[in-house]
Structure formats: structure tokens, C-alpha cells
């Protein structure tokens, strides 16, 4: 196992280097000058000399290879550079938003799991029943509904019309709240974005759980367990579900990067200060240092997510062993 881990780490380093170089070059080859995002000529026309001075100040006038080597050296030293847009350290930009994204993502993940596993299980166990049909319809609607439309409908109904929940932001800013009141305030603000974000996920996972469980329930060992007189609930939960969850673990591991990258649409509509907005806005603004920071972080998370998923197989299925 240790040799396996060592091999994975070495391969990961190679992947990180390749992704960083490729991203850096592609980013600089894309059309558009970051200076014109920074200083819109429609609001203030500047002389070519001033624009050159700005490029120099932002370090954009050096050859791409030199810029990359500077970036690589600084990154290895822990300095991820400064955002072109905000002039703040890239690490600060990420650190100020990552916890918000993790909160939103994990809350939606938990909601998706809590809803998908029981409903998927029930749907499989009571196949072709009214429960199964309703959950199938619900899942397809959940997958098909555009998240931005669903978000606006919820805001209109629950915030504007009924006034039950806040429509935007992560917390109330008009008063200073502390302790339990602050936590409750964040939870209230979390409800709508979590529901929207988890809808597609829980719909998909409901279908995965149903399909996987149906396959397992048809296996011989399940028939044997029933023949031995094991209660149906124990057959389903203890024997069938555990095996049926293996593909679900795969999907969960692969969805880890999405948890960190955030969800741009949901964050934009709800004004949630997360990584999704940071990444997309950095791309629109040609904010090269932030783009690199977010890209490398995503890369690390993808690599870690795959590794965790592979290790989770070993736990879930004792037959799996890595040399």
C-alpha cells in the first residue's frame, strides 16, 4: 500500500506541473488584454504610455516563460501573487471564500445524501409502486429544472411574497450578531441556496442508488440471506445497500472538486461569497494570478478526491487490495 501511495504522489506532482504550465500558457494566449478590464477606456481613456506603465506594474510586460518561472518560484515559496483586480494576495482571496463554499457545498452534499439514499432505497425496494413512480418523476424534474430559474422562483415565493427567508447574502449585516444568533442567521441564509444547489445532485443520486440497489438485490447472496430468514430490512440495509453504495462512493469522490470550486450560478443569484464567483470573475477579468491559484487548488482537490475514492473502495470492499 505504501508503494502504491508513493507512486500516486509522484504521478500527482507530474500532473500538477503539467496542469500549471498548460494553464499558464493557454491563459496568456487567450485574446484580450487584462489592462482593458482593469481600466475601461469607456470610462477613462489613457495614453499608451500610461497603459504600458500599468502593464509593467502588474508584471504583464515580461515574456510568458519569465512570468511562469517567477510564478512557479513564488508559488513554491508560498507566495501565490496578488490579484490584478483587488490587489489583495491570492491566498487571501481564496481563504476568504473557501470556507463559505465548503459550508454551502457540504450542506448541499449532506442534504443530497440524506434525501437520495432513503428515497433511492425505497424506490428500489418498492419497484414499480406509486412511491417508485413519484420518486422517478421527481428525480427527472429535479435534473431538468434549470437552477437559476428554480432559484428565482424560490426567492420570489419565499422571500419577496412570504418574507420567510432572506433572498441574498450569507448573513444579516445590519446588526451585529454573535454566538447562536449568528449561527442561526447563517443557517437561515443557507436554506435557499442549499436547496437549489442540492436539487440536481439529490435527483441524480436517487437514481444511482435505485439502480445500484436493484442490481444488488438480484444477486444470489441476497436470495440466500432471505432464504435463511434474515429480516427484509436487514437484508436491504446491512447486505444490499453496503454493496450498492460502492458506485455512489465513486461519484462522491469525483464530485469533491465541485465542492471546492463552488457553484457560480447559485452563488451569483444568492450573492453567496464563494469560490465559484471568484473563479469565473477572475476569468472574465483576466486576473491571471487568481486564475492560477484557483486552477491549482482545483487540481490538488481532484487528485486528492480520486485518491480518497480509491482508498474508500478498500474500506467498502475488502476484496479490493492495492499492491
Amino acid at each position, binding site marked *: 500500500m505504501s508503494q502504491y501511495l508513493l507512486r500516486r504522489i509522484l504521478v500527482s506532482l507530474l500532473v500538477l506541473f503539467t496542469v500549471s504550465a498548460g494553464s499558464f500558457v493557454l491563459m496568456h494566449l487567450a*485574446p*484580450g*488584454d*487584462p489592462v*482593458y*478590464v*482593469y*481600466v*475601461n*477606456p*469607456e*470610462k*477613462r*481613456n*489613457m*495614453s*499608451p504610455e*500610461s*497603459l504600458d*506603465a*500599468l502593464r509593467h*506594474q502588474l508584471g504583464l510586460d515580461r515574456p510568458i516563460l519569465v512570468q511562469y518561472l517567477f510564478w512557479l518560484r513564488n508559488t513554491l515559496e508560498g507566495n501565490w501573487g*496578488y490579484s490584478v*483586480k*483587488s*490587489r*489583495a*494576495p491570492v491566498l*487571501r*482571496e481564496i481563504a*476568504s*471564500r473557501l470556507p463559505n463554499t465548503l459550508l454551502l457545498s457540504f450542506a448541499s452534499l449532506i442534504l443530497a445524501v440524506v434525501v437520495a439514499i432513503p428515497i433511492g432505497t425505497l424506490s428500489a425496494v418498492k419497484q414499480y409502486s406509486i412511491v417508485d413512480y413519484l420518486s422517478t418523476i421527481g428525480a427527472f424534474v429535479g435534473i431538468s429544472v434549470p437552477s437559476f430559474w428554480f432559484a*428565482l422562483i424560490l*426567492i*420570489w415565493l419565499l*422571500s*419577496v411574497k412570504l*418574507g420567510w427567508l*432572506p*433572498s*441574498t*447574502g*450569507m448573513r444579516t*449585516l*445590519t*446588526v451585529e450578531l454573535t454566538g447562536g444568533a449568528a449561527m442561526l442567521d447563517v443557517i437561515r441564509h443557507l436554506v435557499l441556496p442549499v436547496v437549489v444547489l442540492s436539487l440536481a445532485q439529490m435527483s441524480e443520486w436517487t437514481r444511482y442508488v435505485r439502480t445500484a440497489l436493484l442490481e444488488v438485490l438480484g444477486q444470489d447472496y441476497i436470495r440466500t440471506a432471505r432464504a435463511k430468514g434474515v429480516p427484509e430490512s436487514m437484508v436491504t440495509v446491512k447486505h444490499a445497500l453496503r454493496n450498492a453504495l460502492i458506485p455512489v462512493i465513486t461519484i462522491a469522490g469525483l464530485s469533491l472538486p465541485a465542492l471546492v470550486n463552488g457553484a457560480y450560478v447559485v452563488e*451569483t*443569484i*444568492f*450573492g453567496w*461569497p*464563494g469560490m465559484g*464567483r*471568484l473563479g469565473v*470573475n477572475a476569468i*472574465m477579468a*483576466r486576473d491571471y494570478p487568481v486564475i492560477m491559484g484557483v486552477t491549482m487548488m482545483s487540481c490538488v482537490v481532484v487528485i486528492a478526491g480520486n485518491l480518497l475514492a480509491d482508498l474508500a473502495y478498500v474500506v467498502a470492499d475488502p476484496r479490493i487490495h492495492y499492491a
Partner: protein
Amino acid sequence: MTVRKMLAIACLVSCFAAAVCVGLLGSSSAPDEKYGGTLVWGVSDDPLGGLCPILTNGGTDLFAYGFSAQPLSWGGENYPAELRPILATSWEVSPDGLVWTIHLRSGVNWQDGKPFTADDVLFWAQTIQDPATGAEWFRERFYVDGLPFTFEKIDAYTVRVTTAAPVDNLMSSICVPLIPAHYFIENNISNSEIATSPANVSGGLGTGPFRIAEYRPSEAIILERFDGYWRGRPYLDRVVLRIIPDPDAMLSALLSGEVDWTMIAVNQIPQVKKSAACDVIAIPVDAAYSIALNSTKPMLADKRTRHALMEALDRRAIWENVSMGYGQILYGPWIPVCTAYEDLPDYPYDVAAAKALLAEVGWLPGPGGILVAGNVAGVVPGTRFRLEYWVTRVGDAFPTLVQAYWRDIGVEVEQKFTESSVFFDENMGKADKPFDVYTVRNGFFGPSAGNYSDLIGSDAAASMYSYANSQVAALFDQASHAASPAEADVYYKQAGRIIWDDLPILPLFQRTALWAYNTRVQYADAVVSASLLGVFENPELLWVKK
């Protein structure tokens, strides 16, 4: 009278007296209702460039400076055009126009309690003028003919500014919020480090009624009341600039009461008007919509062609359709806040006249109703009259309207969608710009037409509209050396008439800022302005009904 009766009367009299006192106190406490509360202002994006006012690039941070920072005078770069003394109380200029003496306001403190003095003005000026600072948005405004203005301290509250050539609108030119010298000196922050210093990243000190207390990235900028403000304690305790990127979500937040004040689009007005708790005010701004034509292209080189394209547009209908009648139609190249603005002869909507002009130029009817070149100078005979309209913003209504109008006169318009940074990258600084047509949203030039010099009047490469006219350039040069703004305006008006005849741009209408607000916000005394550096002239007088 018995003692008991006397005591009863005394008691009654005392109660009556107490009631009168309470009544008087009650009436005298009415102004107290204005104090306290928070105003939540919806903005669409994080600050661009940080929160130090000298480094602004025209983003959300401008709204923050309107509450926290102040310039020497208000106006010029801003709207309205007349100058109002703020941190400067008065100023004089020498007869030759080269020396300005500026008298500063005493008794003003920075938000950390330290006094504002001439040292701050000198520090602020040299910081902006130093290329290492990167204050490119403002640096050139502290120069004339390539030479920097020289700032000298006469005494603690008097500064002398010497220029290499007369600058008639100097106070407008240097209308940039001040920054505190002592903060940067005491913290050993060099000019090149200001951009990445906490003053820019998290917000620094100003002399305004509210100080930037906290910046939460992608969430909000929080400003707290400054009790030591030189005009007196502000009414509000706090102003929160809440960042909500989506316009529909912003409107929802306003209608649900989570946001008190925000800018909206024209098509959102009906929904706001339906709400009993919200209302809209429209303020004309120093900005306009125009259609830019690349007059260096052979198809657009002939002035008659540009006249035809102008007469083929029903500008009133466009104004009513896009702006719902807000703002005003332009009859000149400048925006009305410009002192050189004058109403020039209209180009009336006349399709027949437009077609006749194009026929005169040499365009002939072609297949599909699109004109083809006959004997058009510089155009290969048989070429279809086809223009590429570069579209840089989602939801830009003008390209489709222009496409329809010009189709009526046989001009085919194809929309080319591109990002604005790509557009500027491919067109800026080039004499042979590739664009044919694009929508211009320029603004914030102030009362002097000289501020338009980079757009019109230099050369085709430097001009955003690819427009070069030696007569106009000469008039601009004469105006820049004029002895007074009135004399300069004589030259600018002549230039304006030439440009209106040349039509390198097709001015449509002046823009309007549409502010939607919750009616609990009381802004009358604060006075809404269309200034670049703040929406309220007196933000300390803003208050909210509890």
C-alpha cells in the same frame, strides 16, 4: 381652604407642569428620530483595483468613497458642473493662469483623529504623480504638456500649485479624494507598495462622514459612522454596500426589504413602481449612448454616408424604446453638462433622404435589397454594403435596432459578439482599427470639452473612434491654452460644430441613473447627485425611518 385641599391643588399644578415639560421634551426630541439605523446599498460587484481612492478604476469602490473620502472641491469631473468647496475653501489663480493658490479647510480630521493639513495635499499629489504608484486613472490629470503640476506648502492650510501652461479647469482636474500622509509615512509604505497595502486591500482613512470599517470580499463593504466628521455627526450609524451580482436578485432584495437603495435598469421600473414600499428617482448623468463609425474604412469614409446612416435612425423612437423617455436626445457631440454644449441642427429621421444621400455617394440597389458599390471611392465595385457591428455587452439593445433601421436603407449589419477587453485589445492604439460600428457608453467628462480630446481630436490611432481632423485638433489645442474657460468654450463650440457635421459618432441620448429605493430612506437633505465620486452631496444627512 383646608391643608388637604391646598395639597391637592399643589399636586394638580405639579402634574400639569410636569405634563407641559414632558410635552416640550417630547417635541424637542423629534430630530433624534433621524439618528441611528443602517442603510443597505446594493452594488453589483467587488471594488476594482482596491479601496484606496487614488487607485480607483471606476468600480464599486466609487460608491464607498462617496461616504468615506473627500476631494478638495466637488465638481468638474463630477456632475454638477459648478465647483463646490469641500476640503478646499477657496482658490485664486494668477493673471497668467500658471499659479493657483488653494486655501484649505481647517478643523478637519482624518478618521483616526489626526488633523488634515497641507502636508496631506503635498503627499497626495506626489503619490498620484509618481508612476510607481500606479494611479494611472488620475496621474495624467496632474500634468500639462507632459510636465507635472508643482505643489508647494505655503502654510498649514495653504498650498500653491504651479503649472507649466494654463489649466483653466485645474480644480476639476485634481478632483480626486485625498489620502492621509501620516498613515503611509508612519507605516513605511512606499508609493509602489500602496496598491498591495491594507489601505487599498481592506480600506483606508478618509475625511468623510463614514469610515470603511470592514471589507468582506464578494459580500459587503461596511462603513461605520465617524463622529468627528467636520460637518457634524452623521445621522446613520452604518452604511453597508451589499454585493449582489445578479440584477434580478438585486431587485428581489429591494422588494423584500433587504436592500434600501440600488441602481436598476429601465425595464425594472414597473416592478418597483408596483411596490408600495419602493420608489424610483431618475438623475441625468454625465454619460451618453452613441454609435461609433470607423470613418477610416472606405465604406464609411464619405461624410454623406455617415449623414445617411444618422438620418436612417429614428433617434426619438430608440430613446423611447431603450430608455423609456429618460434622459434626453443629444443634438451635439458633447454631453449637456459640458459648458460648450449647444443644440445644433437636428438630423431628422428621413429614410428617403438617407437613400438619396447613399445614391449620391455611388451606392446602387443590389440583390436582396442590399446596396452594392457602384462608383464609391475606395470601394471595389459590386461590393455589398455590409458593416460589422462589434457587440461587447450582453443585452445591448442598440445593435438589433440599428440593424433593423439600416436594413431599410439597404445597409446590411452583422453583429459580431466579443468581450470588451478583446475589443479594446484589437482596436485601441491602432490607426487601422478593424471595427466598423460599435456602441459607445462614454461618460464622466465634466464641464470642459477638453476632456474629450482623447476621443476626438488627436489622431486616428489615439482616438477611440478612429477620427482625426486637423481643424478640430487645432481648435482643441487653442482651447487648451485659452486664458479662461469662456474663451476655451468658443474654440470648443467651433470644434463641436465640425464634429457634428463630420459625424464620426452618431450621438443618441444622454443616460440617466435610475435609483430605486425603499421609502424609509430619507435623502432630500442629502441631495442626490450624478457625480462620479459619490451619489449624495451630503451623505451625513441621509437618514432612515425606523
